């Protein structure tokens, strides 16, 4: 074992296959994100509905698909649905017969159940005074929801949504078990061909790392765009503000953490 456990030539040769795997991973991610976003809103509305006939099935759905590990859900969809004769002989078999579609279905079930908490939390974070005010101004409940609550909730929920997207993107590595050839599956194949334990895994890890950090960068830009009114206001009011400044946070780490947790990008930080 040399000092550097990575075989650079092998890593270079595996790049085309890795990029193909990355395409699959990206495709799964984008599809599930789209489905999850669309489906989680009605599910959330059912969950917070005062009518039990909507709320209880939604709750049951969420508890099951949130609590079950992703790996089991994928097995469940991939091996389970093929056992239903009506499904196997029906026209929908084109969907359920493909491992890619099964992966998307399994991940979507899990992702949308998580999304319910995100959507619910951000909808509830909207101050009640705002909805009351729009009611008082004669807006219909539907208008209040689309134009007041939803846009504000999107801003409040962005951080939680980012966490969920990052978690879930890393979770897509599991789809390789149901024969979807994603990034992890490619790394595994190369391992089985070469028995090099480090190079394929570390190359795939680098791909994932870049992907996850790209997601973070995109979210930071989105956050800045959505909250642009706040930054503009802060910049204007700061010099005139005569209120006592908050006591400085003692250590540089704590300050760095504070700026990170508040989502304020540090000055001069390259995006």
């Amino acid at each position, binding site marked *: 074992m040399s000092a550097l456990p990575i075989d650079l030539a092998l890593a270079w040769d595996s790049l085309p296959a890795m990029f193909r795997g990355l395409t699959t991973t990206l495709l799964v991610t984008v599809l599930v994100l789209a489905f999850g976003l669309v489906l989680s809103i009605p599910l959330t509305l059912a969950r917070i509905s005062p009518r039990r006939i909507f709320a209880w099935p939604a709750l049951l759905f969420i508890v099951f698909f949130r609590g079950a*590990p992703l790996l089991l859900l994928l097995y469940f969809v991939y091996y389970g649905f093929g056992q239903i004769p009506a499904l196997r002989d029906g026209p929908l078999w084109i969907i359920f017969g493909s491992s890619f579609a099964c992966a998307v279905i399994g991940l979507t079930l899990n992702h949308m159940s998580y999304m319910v908490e995100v959507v619910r939390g951000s909808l509830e974070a909207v101050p009640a005074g705002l909805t009351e005010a729009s009611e008082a101004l004669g807006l219909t409940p539907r208008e209040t929801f689309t134009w007041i609550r939803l846009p504000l909730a999107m801003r409040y929920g962005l951080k939680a949504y980012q966490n969920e997207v990052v978690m879930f993107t890393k979770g897509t590595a599991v789809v390789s078990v149901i024969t979807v050839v994603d990034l992890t599956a490619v790394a595994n194949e190369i391992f089985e061909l070469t028995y090099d334990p480090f190079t394929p895994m*570390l190359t795939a*890890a680098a791909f994932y790392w870049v992907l996850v*950090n790209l997601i973070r960068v995109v979210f930071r830009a989105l956050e800045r765009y959505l909250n642009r009114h706040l930054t503009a206001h802060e910049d204007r009011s700061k010099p005139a503000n005569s209120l006592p400044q908050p006591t400085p946070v003692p250590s540089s780490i704590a300050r760095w953490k504070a700026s990170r947790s508040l989502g304020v990008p540090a000055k001069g930080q390259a995006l």
Partner: protein
Amino acid sequence: MNLFTPQFGGYIYQMAQGALVTLELFVWSFILTLIAGTAIGIITLSRNPVIQLVWRVYSSIIMGVPSLLVIFLLYYGGSAMLTAVFGASRSFDVTPFGAGMAALTIVYAAYVAELVHGAAKNLPRGQFEACSALAVKPTAAWRHVILPQLARLALPGLVNIWIIVLKDTPLVSLAGLNDLVAVSKIAAGATKEPFIFFIAACLFFILFSALTSQLAARLEVRLNRGIAKAKA
């Protein structure tokens, strides 16, 4: 399939064995994660630039890479790594259990450390100053003053990590560990009854996390005794 055949009973027995393996792996991983994460969290509160650099690189890599890859890396490459560290004179066998435990610990220790940072940041500065003013030794101050409060502040986050680790434990079955998920997959394949076995395995995870959130709620009451609730 008849549910009351001896064959079915055998699968149930195997599932119970698998559940034990899963639980064992989970409990060990979580204990190690807690210890390592707290230690890392406390060490990296230091302002030493080298420590900061190492911590930032470690946390960035760990938080950007799927845990499944870390499990594979340690399982496939574990014996080579151990040989590199301890010399070629000894050979090492890396079991799926050991590799999974190490991988889960390495991954989730970073998250626990992050949590400890957040909690330590939320402690009033006066706590540390009062300890040094009263000439309480740093070790005693950490043990009797700081850590109990960190536990209270970090508990909600720890419960989250507990549930995430629980749901990541089945991934180790992909490295060949014969845990609940692996057994239920075998049973489902052999009996052609995937729904029974997979739903049973899912229910195990759901019930276990429901049980632990009950316990966590009780623990929270216990740790928060003496703290006045904010009046809503």
